[in-house]
């Protein structure tokens, strides 16, 4: 058992800052704690860009690489926001790696099935999002979920701002048709 006198939040939890310091120092317990706190977010981000298998790979990679990556964390914003950004970039890298012709992994499970009137709509929407070509889905998710501007998306994906707008528009057009 590692002993790393972690700073605690008022509710008795250790703060992210303390965990980060511990992870940097090599604590796998602290890494596990960060995983339980933020793993779901990282997976969700990856899963929005990628199929299930690829998303799992990305999430694993993010946490495996986290101790070293934290060297670059300047604590200018909150840790979850930084981690989210790492997850986005890792997902985009994975997208780029994936060959264009690769058949997408099956997306049958993993999404919450809420009850209520619009469940079917949302399932249909989810499927439609998954059916989007990678290039359109990346822009769509960056814009609608991650809230990036078209200029930022352009920089991330190495495309022009206009191309980002067009892909965004296309994604919506395609989603509206299929939902």
């Amino acid at each position: 058992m590692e002993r790393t006198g972690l700073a605690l939040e008022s509710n008795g939890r250790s703060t992210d800052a303390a965990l980060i310091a511990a992870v940097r120092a090599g604590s796998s317990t602290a890494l596990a704690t960060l995983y339980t706190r933020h793993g779901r977010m990282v997976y969700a981000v990856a899963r929005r860009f990628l199929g299930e298998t690829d998303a799992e790979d990305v999430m694993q990679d993010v946490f495996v690489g986290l101790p070293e990556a934290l060297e670059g964390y300047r604590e200018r914003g909150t840790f979850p926001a930084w981690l989210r950004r790492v997850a986005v970039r890792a997902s985009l890298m994975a997208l780029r790696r994936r060959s264009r012709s690769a058949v997408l992994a099956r997306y049958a499970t993993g999404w919450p099935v809420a009850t209520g009137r619009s469940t079917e709509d949302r399932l249909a929407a989810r499927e439609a999002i998954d059916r989007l070509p990678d290039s359109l889905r990346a822009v769509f998710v960056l814009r609608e979920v991650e809230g990036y501007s078209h200029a930022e998306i352009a920089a991330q994906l190495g495309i022009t701002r206009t191309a980002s707008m067009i892909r965004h528009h296309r994604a919506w057009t395609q989603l509206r048709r299929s939902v």
Partner: protein
Amino acid sequence: MSIRLHPTFARLRGFARGDLDEPNRRRVARHLTGCARCRSEVARVRSILEAASADPTLPHGMLPAILERRAAGGRVILPAADGTVRAPRLGRLHRVAAIALILVAAAAAALIYTPALEADSSELHFTPERPTPGATITVTYRPTSRLADEPRLVLRARYRTAGHGRARSHAVLGTLEPDAAGTYVAQVELPDSIVYAVFVVENVDATFVDHNGERWELITHDEEGRPLFDALWQRYSDVQQRDLRIASDVAAEIVRLHPDRPEGLRAILFDDVSLASRAAADSVRRAHRERYLADVMHAIDAIPEPDVFQLAGMVFYANELADTATFERYRTLLYERYPLHQATVQRRTFDLVTAHRGDPDALMLAFDTLYRETGTGVQVGFSAFDLASRRERPDEMTLWGERFTAEDSTFAWFVATRYAAVPVLHDRAADLMRTAIERQTVYREADRPLTRTRDEFSATLRLTAGTMLTELGEVLLALGDTAAALDTLEVAFDAGWDPQRFRTIAALHLALDDTAAARAAIARVAADPTTREAADSLRRQLGEAASGDRWESAVATARSEMMTFIWQRAVDRSPLLPRLRLERPDGARETFELATGKPMVIAFWSRYCPPSYAQLAEMDRTLQRLIAEDVPVLSITDEDLAKVRPFLEQNGYGFPVYADPESDASRAFDRPGTPTYFVLDAEGRIRFESNHVSDVVRYVYAIRTAIS
């Protein structure tokens, strides 16, 4: 079919995300209460956004795998994530959201009429023949065979009211009920305000309009049976847009019947001067000064209270006659007696332009002073705005643009297009364009032109909307609001078939590098027989994307869309005569069969009809092209060939022209107005009818394709 104004998708999406500004949010909310279609669009956007941001459940067994990989020395280089760190989106304000416009392409009803070989011309009469304003008249209508079986018919009118108002309105004046004799009758109480009207008869659904070339006119009279000046003047204004010969007859009638009105003289003078050579113009003016000026002055001076238009008319008449003394005399009277009237403000505007010629700064100041003093003036608004936009002064442009459109909102589009030429005013241009589109492209029955069916009017509005939306799209692109621009262009793309518009849309998509959208637009340009050549340069710009299978299939799609559009406009009826005896240019008579085994074009035109005159150059090109392609073409004029030939030669028009001395053509095609173009199929049946020559080639192409 109807056009309905909906918020654009970009705006509905903003609403669903909750990031519209308050005025727009309220606008959309108001719209949603009455529009199930948009409500369901919003619901759809919401479910997409919810699905997009829903968190999936975390798969099991991930943490051990991570820790094992770490323990085994696994390292991963992650991409750097420095730079600004942002929170996930909570809502974003769209500075510019595109306007509410989705055109509902309701099942477009094809205009298909039952054949009517034996039909003959209809008649409309009313009694008394010389009604006073507010009189009750009995209207009797003997129907054309195409309306003969209707349970009742609608009497519709375009009317004008007393005074010099330029507004023309349309109204249903009554319902015609059938009587035992097979005619239809209605008692109509004319509103007091109507002094002049043109009648048409249509069926209840307005799918067929019997307009008799707009020749069923009602002119109100005074108690002694003399046509009222207001009625004649409004008839002049109305007829002037259809037939300048009739207009000049009406002006002469005004001079004869109402010697105290200068308006008729002014109209005649204007026509005479514009037709005469420069040298002859002076002698025309002299003749007017010697023969008419004293009489009309005498007549006006005998009236204790001449009205504002009599005085203003004298000012204009004297001005055109270059008679300074008379001009100044009546101008003084006008300014004294009617200082705030529009006619006065208009005159004073012209005075300022003359006084400050060459000094635009002073002129601008003077306009401003005049406006503040009178608080009104379409004319001063227009002149000042025009000057401001020629000077490219954004602050002056917006000041006068606002004053001008407040005066008359129908100028909104005009002002917006001028704004669009000045980059710092693009924002305003877009806003104003949206307002104008919302106002000008909504179907209002009262705006339906007299001779148009409902479907025709809807189609026209759709095309207008398409053109306007394309211009808005250009402005939005210039503003950098690509999302709204793409939305707008998408709607414009679907707003009816107009290859010129597709050219513009294609160019915009090319500028955006949006290859797929550009290809679809260029394919439409290429599919249209009138713009095939124009497509080539666009294709070159598109490069590889404009070749191969994808290109071929885009063109095939475009072609079938065009055919759908064209055949929705098709009719199917026989001309009322199977052959026409016409007079050839060499004076001989010749009989033409209408069934030629090929598509055939019959063009009715008149150089005295302003819309027809305006199309002559294009008509010449089109008809010559068709003749070169071996399509039989009959172009029929409404005047003597001896008179029209020198005119055609002078202007270099080469299309062959025929006269209709026995009225065969007029009867066969049921007294068409001008310009009207009929396209017949191989059996000689009328399949298309249009007032625009640009449609003709497309129609011929459609029939040829159908034959082959």
